[in-house]
């Protein structure tokens, strides 16, 4: 079992003929993901590593039947239309490995996604991977790399950092454990899926015995994790690291979701709220895996 990305999840790749789209589609397919179609306007009828390309999402769905999820490899300014198009074709899970998306576009996608009852991951999410089952986005890199770093096991991973979405599972694997599903929630100022959405899914997944969170400064996300624990929406062991203690207010340290605004979202506040909820907060990221190991033993 896993969350969001399971054995039979069918996937569409929007922007499949582009620089990233073509390379990542090949990776996802090579990893065993059911990539059933791709879309690039004006390139319908072509194939990318054996995946049929269509001009529109609607055309793809008409040919292939309902599709569960889409991964959008499109430039930031084009994301809104890609997402609305996927939503209008009934796709309920959209992975958005796209950065520098205009904010108002994001707000419109979020509102429309909510109306359609869909889950939007990102923007700025490098993706999601359920080891041995499927991958969507960049996460995993290549089939060989993915097999080396992401091994199946009992830990769910939620990360706010793209890079750490690979590093935390790698450290977990080094500690002799493995992961159910790894999710990078994204980097943009407003995100479609966060701790409050994902922790209940891990709670419901019988194979997930504990969850690791790589947190960062800024935004309400770690507080949502604390809230999920407080309200018993998540009751399994939870280990959290919060990065960015040194960052000054008003400066973001790479991506727009991690800026301390109006004095809110500092590492100190987050750690306090997590500890009060009884979450295991670690001081350094290399303590995540050993702490999980200890918790699972007890």
């Amino acid at each position, binding site marked *: 079992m896993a969350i969001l990305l399971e054995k039979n999840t069918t996937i569409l790749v929007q922007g499949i003929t582009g620089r990233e789209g073509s390379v990542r589609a090949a990776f996802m397919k090579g990893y065993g993901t059911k990539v059933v179609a791709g879309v690039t306007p004006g390139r319908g009828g072509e194939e990318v590593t054996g995946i049929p390309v269509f001009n529109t999402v609607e055309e793809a769905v008409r040919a292939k039947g309902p599709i569960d999820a889409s991964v959008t490899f499109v430039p930031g300014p084009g994301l809104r239309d890609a997402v609305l198009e996927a939503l209008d074709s009934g796709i309920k899970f959209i992975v958005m490995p796209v950065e520098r998306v205009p904010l108002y576009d994001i*707000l419109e996608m979020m*509102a429309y996604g909510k109306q359609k009852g869909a889950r939007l991951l990102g923007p700025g999410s490098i993706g999601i991977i359920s080891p041995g089952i499927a991958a969507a986005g960049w996460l995993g890199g290549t089939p060989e790399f993915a097999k080396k770093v992401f091994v199946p096991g009992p830990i769910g991973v939620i990360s706010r950092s793209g890079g750490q979405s*690979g590093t935390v599972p790698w450290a977990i694997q080094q500690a002799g454990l493995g992961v159910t599903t790894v999710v990078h929630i994204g980097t943009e100022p407003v995100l479609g899926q966060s701790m409050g959405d994902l922790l209940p899914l891990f709670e419901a997944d019988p194979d997930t015995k504990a969850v690791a969170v790589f947190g960062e400064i800024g935004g309400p996300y770690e507080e949502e994790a604390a809230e999920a624990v407080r309200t018993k929406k998540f009751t399994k062991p939870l280990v959290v690291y919060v990065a960015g*203690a040194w960052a000054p207010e008003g400066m973001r*340290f*790479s991506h727009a979701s991690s800026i301390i*605004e*109006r004095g809110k979202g500092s590492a100190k506040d987050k750690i306090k709220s997590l500890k009060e909820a009884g979450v295991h907060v670690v001081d350094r990221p290399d303590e995540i895996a050993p702490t999980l190991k200890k918790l699972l033993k007890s």
Partner: protein
Amino acid sequence: MARLYEYQGKQLLKAAKVPVPQGEVAATPQEAKKIAEKIGKPVVIKSQVWAGGRGKAGGIKFAEHPLDAEITANQLLGMEIKNLKVEKVLVEEKLDIEKEYYVGVIIDASKEARAPVVMFSTEGGMDIESVDSEKIARVTVDVLRGFRLYDALNLCVALKVPTRVLPSIAQAIMGLYQTFKGYNCRTAEINPLVLTKAGKILAADCRISIDDSSVFRHPELGIDVAREAPTPPTEFDRIAWWIEEGDLRGTCYIAQMAPDKKGPGYVGYHGIGGGGAILGVDALNRQGLKIANYADTSGNPTAAKVYRAAKVILSQPDIEGYMLGGFIVANQEQWHHAHGVVKALREELPKRPGFPSVILLCGNKEKESMEILKEGTTDLLGQNPIEIYGSEKVYETEFLAKRMRALIDEYRKKREIKG
């Protein structure tokens, strides 16, 4: 830069039919005098800097006559408020204040909202964070339905705003929301929105910032560096932004941390991935080192983009070392980084004999990357110490920071002997 000065914000508000005080911006005392003459009554002279608490810092002053305005502007121009130099002042009619309100549009990223929130308060003129929540009315906007005039009216009704001023306040709230939407703002606030003794509603101050990713849609704003930062962009920031601007292939984020580097201990820092990069900064700080700049090249940038980033980082004067802080087992193929960094090192290190580098690069195509790095730097080792590490050291932040520190100490010793 995505943040606007007060006078720029007021121009946008005026265009959205939010009344603002009569006034203009001045860069010289003479201009300030002319503006005050035109206004023909007592004026307020406001320093244009990105800092809160300008009044307390002495950056806002009143003048009764145009000659006073000239003298006062002369005092303000060139002064420093919270390390920011005042280059322009806004000269405006002085208002007879009856009451102050607050209006703001912010983004609520929480799970429940993921939408803009319009806030209104009858307690304007102070930090909204310190206002009691029962004195703030708010509405979360469904962007598909839009923010309507009756929403603005209801905000006023909720706080029992007197009927005679209610329509004009609601109009101002509407105008602020239209500015927020039309200019793709990250935040837009009017504080205070003033009711004058004569019964007029005017935006006396505003704080508006444009979403970085939307800046390209508004060339008319003349924003040259679309990056959030607490201070205006430096020349270094400008060069760093040119690398990113218009190139959507991966992220190259570079920000100057110490524009006025004084003394030793600065490292040119090249992180990979936002989360991992900061781990290295923490460790360097613990070794008594500071970063001259923060950087992050991730999201699979091309070798050319990585090269330009490394080149900018290495070209900073007065740095004592270079660290590639790849504290991540990256999914991106790291050979692009290897190629880019090698090219920059080969060009920059010969200019600085003895200058040390610590390189950590892990993840996809790591083996190949190590070969590229080693082969590309072997002949530099006689002159410059370069240590290269892979994923066995990915979380060994202390070790790597200590290596950087040790190499910098050696570099200093050598220079002392020479000097």
